[in-house]
C-alpha cells in the first residue's frame, strides 16, 4: 500500500514539472549553502598546519583535555536548558490555548520578547541584576559575593533567551489540536487531568520533541552568552572561537565543530526515531466546534500566577535595556543622558540600514523556503527526501562562528566568489533561519489530514496550486512564525556573520559586540533599543499584511469557513506585538 502510494507520487511528480524543478532547486541550494561548506570545514579538520593529512586534532580533543571538558559541559548545559525551556514554553502555550486568563495578549507578547534581542544583552542584564553589585543580589538580598558567572548564570540566561523558540513551536501546535477528541474524552467521563494525560499530552509529543531539539541545539551553538557570563565554565562554541580565532588553530576549531555536529545528528536521529512512526492527524477538514476555554478553577489561577511571574522576570530583564540606554553609566553615574543615541545616530547609521535591508530580503526567502521544504518532507516522497530533511536541519547545529569561517572558505573562489557581497550574508541569514520554519511547518502539517489536499488535486488543481491554495493557508500560523523567526534571527544574528560582514555591509550586532567589549553598556543598550523598536514596527507591519492577505483569502475560499479554528483563533503573533 505504502509502496504503491510512493510510485503514485513519483508519477504525479513527473506530471508536474514545476514541482520537480522546485525539488531540484531546493536540493541544489541546500547542497551549495550547507553541505559544501560543511565539507570544507570537515576537510580542514583533517589537515594540519603544514598541509598534510592528520587526525592529531581529534586525538588531542578525545584524549581528555580542556576541549573534551568543553564538550561535556555544553551537553550538560544544553540538556538542562532544553528541558527547562520546553517546560516553560509548554506552560505558556497551554495557558493560551486552553484558558481564558486576563492580559493574554500581553503575556503572549512577553513570551516572544526575548527572541527579539541579541542574546548577550540578557547576559548583561543578568550581571546588572545578579552580579556582585547586582540590584537584586546586593541591594535587595544584601549578598556580598554573589557569583552569576558559570553554569547557573548560563542556565538562567539561555533559558530566558531560548524558551520563546519552543513557545512558538508549541503554541502553533496546541492551537491546532482539534477539541473534538478532548471533548469526546470528557464526555465519556474522563477527568480533566486524565484527558490531558491521555489525549492532549500524547498529541503534543511531536511538538515537545521539536521544541526540545531546537532549544538543545541553540544552547549547544550559543556563543554570545558563554562569552559574557560563562566565567570559567567553558563551552564548546566558545572553545571553537578560542581555537579558531584566539589560537589561530583552525584544525582544532573545525575538529571540535565536527564533533559538535556529530552530537547534534545523534540527538536528531533519536528524536526522529521516537516520534517518527506515530500519526497525529487531528485536522481532518471535517467541521468541529471551537474549544471551550477553561474560565475558572484553581488550575487556571495557578497557571495565571506562573505566567505572571515568568512575565515579570522577562520584563525586568528587558526593562533594563531601554533604561540603560538613557543612563550615563549604570551603577556609577545614574544621570540621564542622550549621548548614547547621539553616538549611535552619528556613527551607527550605516550598520542599522544595512542590517534592516539585508534582513528584509532574507525574511520572505527563508519563510517560503521553510514551508516548501516542510511540505516536501511531510507530503512528498522522492529520492533523497531523508537527506533533504537531515541537511535542512543540520544548519542550526553549526555554530555561527564555524558557519562564518566555512562560508569564507567555500565562497571565496569563482564561480562562487561571494565574499564581501550582500548575497553571502543573506545566504547565512536564510540558512540559520529555515530550521525553525521547517520544524514548525512540519509540526503543523503532521496535524493536517492529507485528504484535504488530495481533494484539491482530485478536483484538478496541480501541486503548486494545492500548495499555495490549501497547504499554505492551513499552516498560516506556522508560516507566519517562520517569517517572524527569520526576520528576528537575521536582525539579531551575531556569531555567524561576524566573519561575513565586509567593508560594504556592516551589521548592528557587530557594533553592539564591539561596544560591549569596550564597556560602553549605554551605547550597546541604545543600539539594542533601536533594534527592538525596528523589529516591533516591522512585525506590526508584517502582521497588518498578513491580516489583509488572510481577509481576502477567506472570501475567495468559503469552504474554509467551516473551519472555525482557523478564523476564531488569532495567530500568536497577530495578537502579540
Amino acid at each position, binding site marked *: 500500500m505504502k509502496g504503491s502510494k510512493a510510485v503514485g507520487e513519483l508519477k504525479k511528480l513527473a506530471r508536474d514539472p*514545476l514541482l520537480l524543478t522546485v525539488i531540484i*532547486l531546493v536540493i541544489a*541550494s541546500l547542497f*551549495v*549553502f550547507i553541505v559544501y561548506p560543511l565539507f570544507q570545514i570537515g576537510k580542514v579538520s583533517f589537515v594540519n598546519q603544514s598541509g598534510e593529512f592528520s587526525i592529531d586534532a581529534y586525538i588531542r580533543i578525545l584524549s581528555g*583535555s*580542556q576541549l573534551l571538558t568543553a564538550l561535556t559541559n555544553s551537553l550538560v548545559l544544553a540538556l538542562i536548558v532544553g528541558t527547562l525551556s520546553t517546560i516553560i514554553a509548554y506552560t505558556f502555550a497551554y495557558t493560551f490555548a486552553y484558558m481564558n486568563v486576563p492580559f493574554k495578549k500581553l503575556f503572549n507578547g512577553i513570551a516572544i520578547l526575548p527572541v527579539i534581542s541579541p542574546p548577550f544583552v540578557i547576559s548583561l542584564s543578568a*550581571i546588572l541584576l545578579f*552580579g*556582585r*553589585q547586582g540590584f537584586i543580589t546586593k541591594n535587595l538580598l544584601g549578598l556580598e559575593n554573589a557569583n552569576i*558567572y558559570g553554569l547557573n548564570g548560563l542556565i538562567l540566561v539561555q533559558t530566558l533567551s531560548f524558551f520563546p523558540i519552543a513557545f512558538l513551536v508549541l503554541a502553533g501546535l496546541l492551537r491546532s489540536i482539534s477539541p473534538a477528541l478532548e471533548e469526546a474524552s470528557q464526555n465519556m467521563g474522563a477527568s480533566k487531568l486524565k484527558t490531558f494525560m491521555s489525549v492532549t499530552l500524547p498529541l503534543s509529543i511531536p511538538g515537545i520533541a521539536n521544541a526540545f531539539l531546537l532549544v538543545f541545539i541553540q544552547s549547544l551553538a550559543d556563543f554570545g552568552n558563554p*562569552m559574557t557570563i560563562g*566565567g570559567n565554565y567553558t563551552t564548546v562554541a*566558545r572553545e571553537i*572561537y*578560542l*581555537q579558531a*580565532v*584566539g*589560537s*589561530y*588553530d*583552525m584544525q582544532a576549531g573545525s575538529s571540535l565543530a565536527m564533533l559538535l555536529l556529530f552530537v547534534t545528528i545523534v540527538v536528531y536521529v533519536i528524536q526522529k526515531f521516537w516520534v517518527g512512526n506515530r500519526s497525529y492527524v487531528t485536522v481532518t477538514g471535517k467541521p468541529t466546534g471551537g474549544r471551550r476555554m477553561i474560565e475558572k478553577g484553581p488550575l487556571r489561577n495557578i497557571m495565571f500566577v506562573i505566567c505572571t511571574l515568568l512575565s515579570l522576570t522577562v520584563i525586568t530583564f528587558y526593562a533594563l535595556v531601554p533604561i540603560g540606554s538613557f543612563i550615563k553609566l549604570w*551603577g*556609577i553615574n545614574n544621570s540621564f543622558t542622550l549621548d548614547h543615541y547621539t553616538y549611535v545616530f552619528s*556613527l551607527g547609521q550605516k550598520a542599522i540600514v544595512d542590517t534592516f535591508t539585508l534582513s528584509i*530580503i532574507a525574511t*520572505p*526567502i527563508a519563510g517560503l*523556503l521553510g514551508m516548501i521544504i516542510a511540505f516536501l518532507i511531510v507530503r512528498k516522497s522522492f529520492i533523497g527526501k531523508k537527506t533533504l530533511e537531515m541537511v535542512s536541519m543540520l544548519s542550526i547545529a553549526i555554530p555561527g562562528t564555524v558557519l562564518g569561517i566555512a562560508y*569564507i*572558505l567555500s*565562497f*571565496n573562489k*569563482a564561480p*562562487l*566568489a561571494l*565574499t*564581501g*557581497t550582500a*548575497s553571502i550574508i*543573506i*545566504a547565512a541569514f536564510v540558512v540559520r533561519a529555515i530550521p525553525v520554519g521547517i520544524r514548525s511547518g512540519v509540526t503543523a502539517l503532521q496535524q493536517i489530514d492529507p485528504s484535504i489536499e488530495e481533494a484539491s488535486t482530485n478536483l484538478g488543481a496541480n501541486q*503548486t*496550486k494545492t500548495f499555495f*491554495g490549501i497547504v499554505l493557508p492551513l499552516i498560516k500560523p506556522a508560516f507566519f512564525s517562520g517569517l517572524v523567526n527569520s526576520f528576528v534571527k537575521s536582525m539579531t544574528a551575531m556569531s555567524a556573520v*561576524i*566573519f561575513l*560582514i*565586509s*567593508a*560594504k555591509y556592516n551589521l548592528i550586532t557587530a557594533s553592539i559586540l*564591539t*561596544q560591549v*567589549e*569596550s*564597556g*560602553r*553598556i549605554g551605547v550597546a543598550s541604545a543600539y539594542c533599543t533601536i533594534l527592538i523598536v525596528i523589529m516591533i514596527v516591522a512585525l506590526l507591519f508584517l502582521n497588518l499584511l498578513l491580516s489583509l492577505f488572510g481577509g481576502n483569502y477567506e472570501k475567495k475560499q468559503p469552504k474554509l469557513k467551516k473551519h472555525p479554528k482557523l478564523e476564531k483563533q488569532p495567530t500568536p503573533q497577530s495578537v502579540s506585538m
Partner: protein
Amino acid sequence: MKKWLNIGIIFVLVLSILAACGSESTGGSKEEGSKKEGNDPQGKLTVYVGFQEDHALEAMKQFTEDTGIEVDMIRMSGGEILAKIRAEKDNPQADVWYGGPADTFVAAVDEELLEAYKSPEADVIDDKFKDADGYWTGVYVGALGFATNKEFLEKNGLEAPTKWEDLLDPAYKGEIIMAHPGSSGTAYTILYTVLKVFGGEDKGFEYLEKLHPQVQQYTTSGSAPGRMVGMGEAGAGLLFAHDIIKYQEEGFDNIVLTIPEDGTGYETGAVGIIKGSKQAELAKKFVDWSLGTSAQEVGQRTGSYQNLTNPDAKEPEKAIRLDDINTIDYNPKEAGAERTRLIDKWDKEVNNK
C-alpha cells in the same frame, strides 16, 4: 485565474531561488566591478581596522580628508582580522590591515599573508617598533597596567598594587580578572611579560601558578577585565593602560590605574599591506599616511590614549609616558614564535592543573 496564480508562483520561486542561491550572477558582476576599480588608481581602498569603532571611523575620515582617497572599512579584533585574511587568502578582499597587536602580524608573516613595504616615513620610528623586513610597522604602543577598584582597596585597607608580587596578597584571592591567553592578545602579552619580569620561564611559571588561585575568571576579551573592575564585579584586572584610561574616561572613576614598577610589557599596534591587494599603490599611500603625525593624533580625539610611534606626533596628554615607566624588552618576533608552545604549557601546567 489559474494562469495568474501560476505566473505569480513561478515569479516568486524564481525570485526566491535567485536570491537564495546567493544570486551568482550579481555576485559575478560585482566581482567585475571591483576589478575595473582595481585598474583605476583612484579606486577605493578597503581596510580592516583593529581599533575601537569610533577611533577607526574618525581615522578613515581623516585619511580621506588628507589624501582624497575613498575608504571602505570594517572593524574587527586582531584575531578575527587574521582569521579573515587567512580564509580570504586566495581572493583577498582587503588591502590594508590597520591596528592590532604585532604578534598577530608576525603570525600572518609566517603564513605569507602580508606584503613587505618599507615606508620612507618609517625611518623616524624606533627599530623595536617595526619589522626589519618591512612586513609591518608600529603605529602605536600600549603598556600593561593594573586596574583596581577603589572601594575594594578601601575595604581591604590596601594600596593600589605596584609590583606583580602584590597581586599574590591573600586579599586578592578570587578577585583578579584577566583574559584567557588563548583568546586574547592582551593576555598573551601578560603571560610573556611575566616570564621576562621574573627572569626566565621557570620562575615566571612559578609566579603564574601562584597567581592562578587569585584569578576569579579568564575572560575571552582582553579589555573586559576593565569593565568588570569598574562595575565592581572584581577587585583587580590586568589589561592595557590605555584601555584602563578609556574606561576612566567613560565614567568609571572608581578605577585606579597603576603600572608595575618591576617591569611591564607592551603591545605594538601595527599596520601592514595584505598580500594580493588589488590597490597596492593606494595601500602604500595609506601606510605612509598612518605613520605620519596627522594619522597618529586622531586617537586622542576619540579617547584612545596609546603612545605614538612617530616621535614628532603630539602624545595624548593623558597617556602614560613610556620613558617614565620600566618596560621589559619585548620582542614581537620571539613572542609570536613561542606563542603556541607557551599557551599550551600555561593551559596544562597552570589552568588545568
